[in-house]
């Protein structure tokens, strides 16, 4: 499903450049649950952003579902964002001005769905995450774990093929982290959603079925 070939990424720093990723080759199959690990500053988030089409690699090829990403136009990329890829962030990144319901609904707004379709999809997700009672609350009225649940709900409501999660439990207590990881596992196994998460926790990494170690921009064996 995802194929990286000799991907490099560098940022300009002063007159030189700062190499973050060097010749990364990586293949991830449909239905995998991958954990990316590595020390701080090693380029995990950068890699995830490239996978999620938020950043472009400086060199190399990226094939998403067999298609070359660098050949895609803006429209096609946005379509992938709307349909195939869901994001979960360490800092949740909910929109403060929107209620739980509206936050979850956001990705659907940008797909051309009818109002009733949107309603039923959001209702399904709320139901599944046991958050029906909280649907009219605003993010600042929720605990961190609850906020992250909403973040995940928002990521899956548009039924993506892959979820990219950058330290989804980084801000959470271990009990809450457990709930989130169970949820990921369930999504992976029942809904066959590919999951790629960045994590610092060995425990969290065990939920997945593959671990990628990254160090100094290289993937270790």
């Amino acid at each position, binding site marked *: 499903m995802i194929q990286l070939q000799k991907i490099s990424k560098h940022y300009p720093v002063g007159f030189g450049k700062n190499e973050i990723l060097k010749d990364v080759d990586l293949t991830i199959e449909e239905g995998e649950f991958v954990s990316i690990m590595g020390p701080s500053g090693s380029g995990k*988030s950068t890699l995830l*952003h490239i996978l*999620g089409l*938020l*950043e472009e690699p400086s060199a190399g090829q990226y094939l998403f579902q067999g298609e070359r990403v660098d050949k895609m136009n803006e429209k096609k990329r*946005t*379509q992938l*964002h*709307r*349909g195939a890829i869901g*994001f979960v*962030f360490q800092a949740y*990144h*909910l*929109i*403060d*001005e*929107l209620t739980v319901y*509206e936050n979850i609904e*956001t*990705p659907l*707004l*940008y*797909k051309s769905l009818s109002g009733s379709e949107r309603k039923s999809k959001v209702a399904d997700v709320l139901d599944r995450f046991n958050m029906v009672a909280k649907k009219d609350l605003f993010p600042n009225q929720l605990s961190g774990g609850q906020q992250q649940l909403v973040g995940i709900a*928002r990521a899956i409501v*548009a039924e993506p093929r892959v979820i990219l999660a950058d330290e989804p439990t980084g801000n959470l207590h271990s009990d809450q982290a457990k709930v989130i990881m169970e949820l990921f596992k369930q999504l992976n196994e029942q809904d066959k959603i590919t999951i790629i998460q960045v994590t610092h926790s060995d425990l969290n990494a065990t939920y997945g079925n593959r671990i990628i170690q990254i160090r100094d921009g290289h993937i270790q064996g």
Partner: protein
Amino acid sequence: MLLRYILIAFRNLRRQRLFAFINIAGLALSMTVCLMVLKSTKKEFSYDKFHPAASRTWRITSQATTQEGKHYHMASSPLPLANVLRQDYAIAEDVVSLYGVLSGNVIEGKKKLPVNGAFTEPSFFRVFGFSLKSGDPATALSAPNSIVLSEAAAGKIFGNTAVMGKVVHFEKMGDYIVTGILAPPPGLSHIDYEAYASLSSVPALEQQGMLPNRSQDWNQVQDGYTYVKLKPDVSKSSLATALAFISQRFYQPAAKGIGSITLEQQSLGSISPSQELYNDIGNASPWGKVLAAIAVALGLLICACFNYTNLSIVRSLQRAREVGVRKVNGALRWQVFLQFITESVVMCVLSLVLAILMLILAENYTSIGIGFMSGEPVDFMLFGWFLVFSVATGVLAGIIPAWALSSFQPAKVLRNMVDIKLFGGLGLRKTLIVIQFTLSLTAIIFFVTVYRQFAYKEAFNMGFSRDNILNVPLADGDFQLMKDRMMQVKGVEAITASSGTLGIPRHSGFLQVKTATNGNRMQIGYYAGDADFLKVMQLKLLAGTDFPRTMSRNQEQYIIVNEQMVKSLNLKSPSDAIGKAIWLSDSSMVSIIGVIKDFNYQPIEVPIFPMAIRFVPDQFRQLQILINTKDKDALMAGIKAAWLEMHPGQTFTGEWMSDLLYEKTSGKEPVSGVAILVLMITVIAALGLLGVVSYTTFTRRREIGVRKVMGAGVSGLVLLLSRNYLRLIALAGLIALPLGYLASQLFLRIFANRISIGFFTLAGSFAALLCIALLAIISQTWRAASSNPVDVLRND
């Protein structure tokens, strides 16, 4: 989707109260002015829309060149033109001549009423959309000495009685039988007379000498207005060709010593707003005024929009994450853009609501005209325009922030790497602040100048006396009899009869004089006054004597002139002028009996021109009574009784000369108008600055906290945080001082007698603005600098 955007907009407003308040207050203030202007502009453009074939109707104007080579574009045209167009050219469906000289007093019973009318022909009702409430439009203006009255004029003259068939008796222009009453016109028109008499009455009036002989004179262009309704298939160029032919046929081309006239056409729709032709009729505002009002309103509005732009950009850090999240969830740039535009439109529509409220308040409960008040009712159309206007404002205000915000890259945003400098916000923001304060300071300097000039004008010694003088009209009868009677009232010191009040605009008359010796003509101003004029007005004789007490009433013999007049006669000293003979209007010869010291007989805008005091009892309009008593009430009662005794059945209107001068020449209106605008623009700029400072210091609160923990003092921090803004204000001052100086000079040019602007006006204005700005800046930076650092640092 749109609904969702609107909902978010409201939630944002509620969360960001300061932001919402600053924007809505500023926008609403400026929109109030805009609405006033919109209303009055709509009125200015609504003239002459109800005529049956307005697009085919033209007014003929005259490009006149005088013998001296001076050039005038006159709205009027020669009277014989209408018949030539009718008879010799087959282009017109109808032609109508309007001869606006039927003005004067109408006498009805004991009442004397001024009526302003015109002579015209039956085609009037075919060319224009006026209709009759009673009477037959086809014939009402056919027979000589028939007249059609407006409803108001009919009521004024005859009261509530039946009017058709009654006789209107003009004091100096004969009798007319009422053959029609005008229905109220369906809209505004530049043609707005109280009465229309048949044009066929004019030849007889000319024969009797009641009107000058003009109906066959191609060289007289005053007061005659010609309108042509072209046949449907005739183009404008055919009319132009016809007019060119007529001009050639009746006039020589202009040359040295030869005057000439070229006829032109002006479409009915372009008469109002007025192009300020000479002799124009109607009361539409000139284009200049309409455009100036629009410019002022838009200037204010743009300043308010700047606030929105600035604050939105400053605040964009807070919104950046939202943009990133939306984009990650599949929003396209235009969708994000649209969302922010919707927010600013919502803001503007809210401001509109407030502005409409303020407009209603301003129109109903205050008398502060800014000069744009029109008193027009707000109809549905106008309301639609208001709405369109506020949506447009929203787009205008929101376009830059929406563009900047929608350009955020999600990857950068979500890594917290958005730097406000990334999209040039800083430069833009500074520029906008500088522009606002430049405008504001320019306006303040201008205002101070206007205020000082009018204060100066009020205190200016015009060279004549104005206190304790009561003006009473001299309606009928002999001025000497009236004077003798009034002199008996206790408390009266002296009385003069005069043609008008010194110092009031347009009260002086004008006439052409020629010296008997060299025959040089010149135009001078004059007042008619009697032998007590100099005494009551306290004008100083430099040479010669006052008028003798016994003078012929019918034959002018003597004249008193001012120093300027002596100069223009090329005489060395006042005493040289005594006894010199002068021709007045080529008709009578008088000799100079006295020379008076120059004084401002016209408002001080105008320099002192040559002028004269003439003894012309026919032109006496009023008695000016100098009193020497403190008991003004008793005196007034005495004068009133005496006046009524001589004018039974009429209403007495006496007025103090000083009050009249104050009312007619003081700058109350312009000063208060400019004051309101200055206040608004300064409040808007100050609010904007307040908002920007407040947000930027908020974003720097962590830096402040860290600095404090490291031992920085409050005053040092305030200075650090305020320095950049003070620099901006100084820059604004640098630009605005010369600008304000220039604008003020331009204004002062209106006045022949004027103040100089001076260092203190400029420095004071700048200091005032600086104080306001400091207040806005320091109130915010002080608060941030004196906050407890622990609160901030613990929070993240």
